[in-house]
């Protein structure tokens, strides 16, 4: 067995306001700037270690003296220490690094949020008119696609998959940006023409587990905490209606409860009360809208315009298109003519 290099040689990075030092490269994360001391609330160290989990360990093992362990078969074992400032990773042989990071930025980030008193909402988030707007819903509902469409219009992407929400002020929930990359299926990457900015998982095309992580450029990287303005509940697109309606009381609560990222983990960590309190605060302080939209991709502009108008967000130049980005080349003009024909 080769020994692992456990030097924290990568970073420092910034993730949800935390300074991250790592023994594995995390190219999705933005570099920590020493000028960012405004949010230097904690350091997280990501270390490598061999054989800290035995072969029988599976799933989530909570509240052992060593912290929380999570074993994802075929990928890695992860352990978050009791202080939630150290993550130990035990990669399985030959694991796809992108897949490993996907779990690190998914389940492990959710554990860090729960342990650090944040609420991890399953969704994708963009900055609209200076405020954070989250698109939340079950896997496959189109959260990342809609966030990417808005990002391509010039609205900065704040996070994808785990939206870390700080509810220390119950009246004004705050979104803590993660990193401006989005996880998409290859056909969506092709549609948005993000292929040049994407890294793909090693799983064969067309097989489960094949996805790409795409950077959205050009883009202003937002690292500071942002007030949360709204949450949109997404179902699988259906029908031919585009519109939004407010979910009230119990309906907002039930939706948010269903979209707590790995909510079962939060409960297994014994954090029922924290989770319940956060969901109730969020449902009270932030409007939750049901977003109706059609599955026709060529009507995505209608959805994008509806959301922009609802938040008075027209920061993008008028000649931007959600698929193409800036239209400033002869090639783009040719493309547009083709579309018109």
């Amino acid at each position, binding site marked *: 067995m080769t020994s692992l290099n456990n030097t924290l040689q990568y970073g420092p990075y910034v993730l949800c306001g935390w300074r991250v030092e790592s023994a594995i490269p995390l190219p999705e994360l933005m570099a920590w700037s020493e000028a960012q001391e405004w949010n230097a609330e904690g350091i997280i160290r990501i270390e490598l270690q061999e054989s800290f989990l035995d072969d029988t360990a599976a799933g989530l093992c909570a509240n052992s003296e060593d912290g929380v362990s999570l074993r994802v078969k075929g990928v890695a074992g992860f352990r978050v220490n009791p202080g939630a400032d150290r993550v130990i990773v035990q990669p399985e042989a030959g694991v796809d690094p992108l897949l490993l990071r996907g779990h690190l930025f998914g389940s492990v980030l959710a554990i860090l949020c729960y342990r650090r008193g944040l609420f991890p909402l399953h969704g994708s988030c963009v900055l609209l008119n200076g405020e954070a707007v989250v698109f939340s819903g079950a896997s496959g509902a189109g959260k990342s696609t809609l966030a990417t469409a808005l990002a391509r219009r010039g609205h900065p992407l704040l996070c994808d998959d785990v939206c870390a929400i700080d509810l220390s002020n119950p009246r004004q929930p705050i979104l803590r940006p993660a990193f401006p990359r989005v996880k998409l299926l290859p056909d969506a990457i092709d549609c948005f023409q993000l292929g040049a900015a994407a890294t793909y998982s090693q799983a064969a095309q067309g097989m489960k587990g094949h996805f790409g992580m795409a950077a959205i450029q050009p883009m202003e990287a937002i690292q500071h905490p942002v007030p949360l303005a709204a949450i949109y509940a997404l179902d699988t697109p259906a029908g031919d209606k585009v519109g939004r309606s407010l979910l009230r*009381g*119990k309906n907002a*609560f039930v939706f948010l409860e269903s979209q707590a990222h790995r909510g079962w983990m939060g409960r297994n960590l014994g954090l*029922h*009360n924290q989770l*319940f309190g956060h969901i*109730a605060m969020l*449902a*009270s302080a932030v409007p939750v809208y049901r977003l109706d939209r059609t599955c026709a991709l060529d009507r995505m502009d209608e959805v994008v315009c509806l959301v922009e108008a609802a938040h008075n967000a027209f920061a993008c130049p008028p000649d931007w298109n959600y698929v193409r980005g800036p239209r400033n080349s002869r090639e783009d003009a040719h493309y547009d003519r083709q579309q018109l024909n």
Partner: protein
Amino acid sequence: MTDNSLISRREGWIAAWVDSNLIMMHAESSFYLNLTGSGGRIWELLESPRSVWDLCETLGREFDIEPDAARPEVLAFLDQLLLRKAIDVHLPVLA
């Protein structure tokens, strides 16, 4: 359950208002209840144990109805809470 029965909250429940709904959860089982209207107010009043009649009188004052008129709904609601193991009903103490 009679007018003199003493009602108390059972341990393990947490509750929060969301708009006009009082949402309750039993922490261990993650069982949820959604209380609307005067139901949420009754749960608030049960912060300390009260008799059924005391609840009827208090709600009667707040909603401007006779305590006797409130009694059927209060009893029906308390039955539902008892069924869901959210309250305990204590026998009246004889003077």
